[in-house]
C-alpha cells in the first residue's frame, strides 16, 4: 500500500522497540499516540511529525537521525 502522503522515511523503530521488549501498545502509551500510529510509522505508512520524532528520540535516548533515515 502507498504511504498516506508522499515518500516515507525509513526508520529503526521496530528494531528499537523489540530490543526493549515493548509491544506497540506500550510504546504508543509512552509516546501518547494510538497503537495504530506506531504501527503506521513502523510499517512506513506514516511519517511522524517533528514533535513526535523528538519524543521518540528522547524516549530511546538517541538522535533523530539515528532512528530515521531520510534517504528513501
Amino acid at each position: 500500500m502507498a504511504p498516506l502522503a508522499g515518500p516515507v522515511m525509513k526508520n529503526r523503530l521496530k528494531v528499537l522497540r523489540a530490543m526493549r521488549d515493548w509491544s506497540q501498545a506500550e510504546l504508543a502509551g509512552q509516546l501518547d499516540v494510538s497503537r495504530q500510529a506506531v504501527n503506521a510509522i513502523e510499517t512506513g505508512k506514516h511519517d511522524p511529525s517533528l514533535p513526535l520524532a523528538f519524543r521518540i528520540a528522547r524516549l530511546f535516548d538517541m538522535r533523530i537521525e539515528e532512528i530515521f533515515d531520510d534517504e528513501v
Partner: protein
Amino acid sequence: MSSKSNPNLYYRLVDLCLALTFISLVVGIYDYTVAVADQSWDRTLDNRFSTLFTSLGILNFILSMTIILATSLRDEFAEALWQKTAGTMLRAMAILPPFAMIVMMILWPLTPELPSPLDSYLAEDALAEEGLKLEDVTRFLGTIETVGTYWSLTMSVFVFVFQWHRWRARS
C-alpha cells in the same frame, strides 16, 4: 500535538459508528425490500422498526459528526487519515455526481411506482384552505428532506472512507 487522554478512543468511535451504519443499512434494506414487495410504502419505517431505526440514526448522526469535528480526539495518524479522507471526498464530489445521475436515469424506468411518502400526510384540501398548493409544500418539504438525507449520508460516507484508508494503512 497536544496530549490525548486516550488516543485509541477515536478509533473505537469509528468502529462503533461503522457497526451502527451496518445495522441501519440491514434494517433499512430489509424494510425497503418488504415495502416494494407488498406495495406498502406508507408502512415503511413509520410502523416497522421505527424506534430502532430512529435511535440508530440519531446515535449514528451524533457519532459521525463527532468523528468529523472532534479535532482534539485525533492523534497525528488519525489526523493524517482524516485529511486523506477529506481529499478523497472532495475528489469524489467533483467526479461522481454525473455518473450517479446517469445510473439513476438508467434505473428510473425499472423502479416500482410508489407514492411519495410526503403525500401521505399532506391533505390537499386542508392546504388549500390555508392558501397553499400541495405541489409547493411537497417541493419545500422535499428540499428539506433531500438536504437532510445528503447531510447524514455524506457524514456516514466520510466515516466509511476513513475506515477504508485505515484498513489500507494496516495492510
